[in-house]
C-alpha cells in the first residue's frame, strides 16, 4: 500500500474535502494505483539536476509600484453567495 485510508482522510482534511465511506474506499484504491505508477520516477538518476518549476521564463517580471484602477466594491461582491453591505458574510467562526 502506498497510501492508507487514514492518510487519504488526513489529506482530504488538508484539502478541505469530505468523502462518504464508499467514496473513501474507491479513492484510496485509485490513488494507490496512481502513486504506484509514479514509482517509475525512482529509476531516473537526478543527481545534481536543478528542479524545473517554470516552463520558459528565467527572469523575474518587475513592474513599477503604481496604483491602478481595480474592481468597484459592488462588482467584487456581485458573485458572492451571501454579501452583506460591503462584506462577504460567512458562518460563525467563534462561539
Amino acid at each position: 500500500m502506498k497510501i492508507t485510508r487514514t492518510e487519504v482522510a488526513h489529506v482530504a482534511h488538508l484539502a478541505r474535502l469530505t468523502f462518504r465511506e464508499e467514496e473513501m474506499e474507491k479513492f484510496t484504491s485509485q490513488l494507490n494505483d496512481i502513486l504506484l505508477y509514479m514509482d517509475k520516477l525512482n529509476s531516473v538518476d537526478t543527481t545534481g539536476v536543478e528542479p524545473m518549476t517554470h516552463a520558459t521564463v528565467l527572469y523575474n517580471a518587475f513592474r513599477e509600484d503604481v496604483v491602478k484602477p481595480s474592481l468597484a466594491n459592488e462588482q467584487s461582491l456581485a458573485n458572492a453567495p451571501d454579501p452583506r453591505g460591503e462584506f462577504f458574510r460567512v458562518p460563525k467562526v467563534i462561539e
Partner: protein
Amino acid sequence: MELYSLTIHELQEKLRAGEVTAADILDSVYQRIDQVEDKVHAYITLMKEAAQAQAAAADTAIRNGDIKALTGIPIALKDICCTQGFTTTCGSRILHNFVPPYDATVVEKLRASGAVFTGKANMDEFAMGSSTETSSFGVTRNPWDLTRIPGGSSGGSAAAVAADECIAALGSDTGGSIRQPAALCGIVGMKPTYGRVSRFGLVAFASSLDQIGPFTKDVEDCAILMNVIAGYDPRESTSVNIEVPDYRSFLSRGIEGLRIGIPREYFIEGIDPEILASVRQAIAVLEKAGAKCVDISLPHTEYCLAVYYIVAPAEASSNLARYDGVKYGFRSQEGRDLLDMYKQSRSAGFGDEVKRRIIIGTYVLSSGYYDAYYKKASQVRALIRRDFDEAFKKCDIIATPTSPTAAFRIGEKTDDPMQMYLSDIFTISANMAGIPGISIPCGFTGDGLPIGLQFLGGHFQEGTLIQAAAAYEKTAGMSALIARQKQAKMNFA
C-alpha cells in the same frame, strides 16, 4: 455550399466582396446549431442575442470599409475563458453561476478584431480529463460518431468546429487538451509556446503548463487566429515580450530541406496500428515534398506521464483552493461552521476527477512526501526539457502521432483513471518543456474516425509548425479528403 461549412479566410473573402453579410453567416451557423446541437451538445451556454448585436456591428463596420482579421466570424470560446457579463463555469458545478466582471485578454483581442461569439463550449471540469465526460453539464459527443467522445478537455470547442456549429474556436491545453480533441475530431489545433498567449482571464488549472490556443478547420485559419491572440500582456507576468511574426507569411514557404525529427519513443507498441500506419504515410508524404527525416531520441519520454500527474495536480490543488463558497460560486447550506461550510461546498461543488487530482496534489506537496514526489518530478521535468533542447540541434520540427488511439466510446475509460490518463502520452511532453505543438488531420481509420498528426517545435517556433502543417495539408489534399469524408460519414444518426 452552406456558409457554416466555410473557413475564416473563405468567409472573409465573401464579406470583402460584399457577397454575404455577417448577419447571413451568423444565421447560417445558428441554423446549424439548431439542427445538430441537441445531438452533439458542444455548448454549455449560447450567446445568440449578443452575437446578433456583434454581427450587426460587424456589418456596419464593413459598410464603412473597416474590415479586421475576424470581422463577422462566429467563434466559440471554451468555457474556461472569462467573458464579462456571461457565465463562465469551467465545466464545474462550483462555478455554475459565476459571471466574470472582466474579459480574458484573448476575448478582448478577439472582440477588438471584430469576432462574433457564438457561445461557451463544453469541457472537462476545470480542464481535467481527456474526453469531456467529467463536465458537470453533460457529455459532448463526437460529430463523426455520436457514440464516441470528442476528446478533451476542450471537447466542446473541437466538436463545435467539426460539426460546423462555429467557424473556429479557442481552447486551452495543459497536457494535450487542444491537440488531442483536434485529432479525434479531424480538425487543426495548436498549443502555442508557454508565454506566447496571455493567460489573463483563463481560469487556472496548472499555471506552469496552461496555454490558450486555436481550433480551426484548416492551417490558414490557425495562422489567422494566432496572429490575433499571440503577444505580450502586461497583466500576465509569464507572457513573453518578444515580437509576434505574421504567421500567415509561413503558409506558402514549403518544406524543401526542413529537417523532421522522428523520435523512436513515440512509435511504440500499444499504438493503434491504423494510427501508426497513417502517421508513417504522412511522414512519407512530407519526405516526398522535400523534407529530410532524421531519427532522434527523447529518452525521458516514458516518464512524462508520471511527471505530469504529479506537477499538474500539485499546481491544481493550490489553484483550486480559492473555491471556498465565500467570494463566488456554489456555497453549501449544510455547513455547521466556517470550516464545515468550506468542506461541504467543495465536496458538493467539485466532481470526482477534480477531487482525485486535488487529493493527489495535496499529498505530493505535503510534508514528508514533497521531495519524493514533487521535487523529483520537477527534476525529471528538467531532463525532459533537456531532451528537446538536444533534439532540436538535429532537427527543425518533430513529427509524432497526436494520440495513441482514435476516439473511444463514451463510458469506456471513466472507471479507470490510469487508462484515461494514457490518452495524453504523446501530448504531455510539450507542456512539460513549454514548447509549441500542432495537431492536423492526416487520415481516417477503417471506421471513418479521424487520425491526427502532431508536430512539435522549439520555443516560439509556431511559424515553422504552421509552415510544415500547411505544406502537408496541401500536398496530401487534406481539405478535400475531409470534405468528402464529412459528406459521406457525418450524419448525426
